[in-house]
């Protein structure tokens, strides 16, 4: 009996990086899940929440609860959006029955690598990716969801993939949501240092579990015409020989 999984596609993945979601579906199907996508979903509310507009974020959270009410298991290819649901929804919806619902929803919402390794117990998803890859530990996944080993286990399970360590792999890339534009100079400086560390490894690709990090780092790599390219973990896992 196939595992039923409901896809939570972050709004910016839906609009700007749809290939991440496409590859997420591919991977989940390959490991035997039945993937459903609820088209009513919009945004988890993180932009408003991080900017301090909790009154604007709260209706989004409540809507999210309604949309995903009947989903057994929710999987999301983003550490920051998963964090929003699991860590911050209970704080945002602080009381009442909706608070309880939010807590329970958080318990059945997973980031992709977390779902594969911790829930399904799978580290080899049958992928082939014969390239050198370095890993950037996105902040939310690392510090809020405590995902340290899961993405690395999956990367090590990919045929042909050569994993190289990056200096300060756990230092923030500088995206930070609206921080990227409101504090452009600092964001770019942080991104440049991340790009420097990527370049030192000589890797062809830098990967992470958060598409927003990768969009920002790609912006810097592209501007500098560096050799390395960004690729989301889902896309590596979806690759076949």
């Amino acid at each position: 009996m196939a595992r039923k999984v409901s896809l939570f596609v972050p709004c910016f993945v839906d609009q700007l990086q749809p290939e991440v979601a496409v590859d997420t579906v591919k991977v989940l199907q390959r490991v035997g899940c039945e993937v459903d996508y609820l088209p009513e979903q919009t945004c988890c509310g993180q932009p408003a929440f991080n900017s301090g507009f909790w009154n604007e974020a709260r209706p989004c959270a409540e809507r999210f609860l309604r949309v995903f009410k009947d989903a057994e298991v929710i999987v999301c290819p983003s550490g920051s959006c998963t964090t929003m649901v699991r860590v911050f929804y209970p704080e945002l919806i602080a009381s009442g029955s909706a608070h309880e619902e939010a807590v329970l929803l958080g318990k059945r919402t997973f980031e992709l690598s977390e779902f594969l390794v911790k829930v399904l117990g799978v580290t080899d998803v049958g992928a082939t990716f014969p390239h050198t890859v370095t890993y950037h530990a996105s902040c939310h996944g690392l510090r809020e969801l405590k995902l340290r080993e899961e993405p690395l286990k999956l990367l090590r399970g990919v045929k042909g993939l050569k994993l190289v360590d990056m200096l300060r792999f756990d230092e923030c890339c500088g995206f930070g949501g609206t921080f990227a534009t409101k504090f452009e100079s600092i964001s770019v400086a942080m991104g440049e240092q991340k790009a420097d560390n990527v370049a030192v490894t000589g890797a062809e690709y830098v990967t992470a579990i958060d598409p927003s990090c990768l969009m920002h780092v790609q912006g810097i790599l592209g501007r500098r015409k560096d050799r390395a390219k960004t690729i989301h973990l889902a896309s590596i896992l979806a690759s076949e020989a």
Partner: protein
Amino acid sequence: MSSAAQKFLQDAAVKSADLVHREIIRKNMESYDAAHLRGRSRFKDWEAARRRCQEIKREAINHLDRYLLQFEEKVIAHGGHVFWAANGDEACAYIRDLAVSRGVRTIVKSKSMVTEEIHLGPALEEKGIKVWETDLGEFIVQLRNEPPYHIVTPAMHLNRQQIRELFRDHLGEDIPDADPQKLVALARRKLREAFFAAEMGISGANFIIADSGAVAISTNEGNGRLSTSLPRIHVAITGIEKVIPRLVDLATLWPTLATSGTGQPITTYSTLVSGPRKPGEADGPEEFHVVLLDNGRSGLLGNAEEREVLHCIRCGACLNICPVYRNIGGHTYNTTYQGPIGSVLTPHLRGSEFQHLSYASSLCGACTSVCPVNINLHHHLLHNRRDFSYASGDNAKGRTQFKLWRRAMLNSRLYVLGGWMMRRGLHVLYGLGLAGTAADPLRAWSRKRTPIPLPSQSFRKMWKKGLTQKNAVKR
């Protein structure tokens, strides 16, 4: 936007592009990182140490009245004086009047962030009293007429040549090879004159201990020792939140503070002062005064969510780890307390003019992961943002923008339309080569990065067209 915010953005832009500065900070932090890791390995259970420190501070802050009164009682019983200062002006006035009435001409000071907070130096200097900063880093920035760059390493941004030139111009002696050993020896000689001449020594306090009526002062240089041993008057000024219940609590706090601050197992001179010299003692000050400063801290006490911010032991670890701090440096903050703790604290102590600091963060959470007393710093930044967003006036534009955003997000059709329009619009704009120009709404992105990707189809569209469905459940 407040003028402080505008200045911040300008300074940040200059500093974060300054590659020389970036390299100096990188080297400094690399050495700190290594020392810090070594320091942590000396603990059997570092996380247990953090929890214990958190508990000690929590107990102290949650019973602040009781412990402060106990402290005061004991200090007075030992022959000392305690002055409760509601704000910086009261504290400065007390110390200034004390100095004037005792005929003080020279003061030696060991490091105290609180004295920066209340601008004590100028208050004393306008009475013609010479104040010498004795911590080497503070001494250096004092000569440059600059505020400290970092709460633990005030002159981190300078190299030996700059310090050599500074000493040559201000102390009248040149060290041609700028050897740090010789530079330190020169500073030692000059400051010794001050130590032995001064009538008053001013110190801060890392902790004030309730069960002993004592003030704990940690230095590596020994300047805290000399400042509190030689002059005939010792004034210790401290925030009210520095209190801890028991002397034995230092068994955990001292090593954890030292490890977090510099990676050392313990600071070289961990001093405890409980009063003026007692009869029979060979030396020591005749008078001992403790100034307890509020200056907005009791306000934080009354804020249940933010109260734990008062647990801070001023170790500097959050500054050291913060990628924002590493890029913009300490001076850009333009506040007494910098880095993550400064960003959390300053709006509460000094008002909404500094609220921009709460936003100048990617919320990476590294600060929280190193705080030795487990303060949830990055979550407090979120709370600051929340409180500020709905305060009247300042954020009307942001509120309106997000009200519109919300309308779109609550209606999937509006969301789809909005998303499509954004992609189409930017596609046209960028096709005309206008990325990064004044016409580009995302120019703050496109100026220094390749523009955001603009796919022709959203994932939603692709799914609807059946491009990704194989075993998918049909709706």
